[in-house]
């Protein structure tokens, strides 16, 4: 991987981190509110079903995670397992795509 791409990945992780900073903060508040009196599917769906604001929020949340987590994993795998190279980068792109689709499926499930 050339230096410019490495630096852009680094920047992408920071920019996605800034988005996640807002998303995770909102998510933590939501958890605290939603967990009062236990969880139920009806309660979750009442909040999210047909609600475009939550839909857009969660799509952005998933997208930011898809950028952020695989870049971090790549660094950890390189440093702690010593695996590096093009095939690792390809594997992480595939994992990122799978995580994104799996996440969007979950977002759709509570919206539709």
């Amino acid at each position, binding site marked *: 991987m050339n*230096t*410019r791409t490495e*630096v852009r990945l*680094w*920047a992408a992780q920071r920019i996605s981190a800034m988005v996640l900073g807002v998303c995770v903060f909102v998510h933590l508040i939501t958890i605290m509110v939603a967990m009062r009196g236990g969880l139920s599917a009806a309660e979750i769906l009442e909040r999210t079903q047909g609600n475009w604001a939550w839909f857009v929020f969660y799509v952005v949340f998933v997208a930011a995670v898809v950028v952020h987590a695989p870049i971090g994993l790549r660094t950890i795998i*390189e440093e*702690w397992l010593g695996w590096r190279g093009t095939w690792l980068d390809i594997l992480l792109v595939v994992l990122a795509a799978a995580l994104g689709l799996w996440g969007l499926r979950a977002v759709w499930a509570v919206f539709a």
Partner: protein
Amino acid sequence: MSDFLTVRVWRGDEQGGFQTFEVPRLESQTVLDVVSHIQRQLDPTLAYRFACRVGMCGSCAMTVNGKARWTCRTHVAKVAADGNLELAPLAHLPVVRDLVTDMSAFFDKWARARGQFHPTATRKDPFARIRPDSAQRINADAGIECIGCGVCYASCDVVQWRPDYLGPAALNRAWTLVNDERDGAQAERLRAVAGDAGCHACHTHLSCTERCPKHISPTAGIAGLKRAAMKAALRGDL
């Protein structure tokens, strides 16, 4: 204060082991005093490196009770209150023998990080006028007292995990030159220090900042390099 120190000293190369010596405890004794006592009185074959004894030359750094330190200005009372000392060569560098490491890789990385000054003026030109209170001058001042002892390099885990990582000292040097407006190799230097083997590999462990005997914060300079190189990469100039 007990009368004797128990000192375990690394002997041999990477495959060596610790040898124990008993050294008389003295007032205001430094770790380098202890090593010198062993070499002069107990075992003349002990290999170690020192020169100035006053914290200027950067040649006497070793691992003292697990932490990299300059030994000439480290008092025994500070690091071995219980009377036990463990001395080993600096980490992350090949061991030549006993307490001596081969520092070539460390200094080669200064060169790879474009640590050389590239002048843009000749002796016929007037002096550059740099305000002492300019932000760049202040940034450079914060890093230029480095004595090249290798303590930060031996303390940095990223150096261990990524053997091609330039390391804190080389990046600190590059940062002082990035802030030198007389230097003419800025674009090349940013290219040399960016990316996974350069400043962007730093995880802000702050071990270099924690251990630097000159109280420099290489982490601060590395953060500056990260920002400068990121701007260049996003502009497409890297």
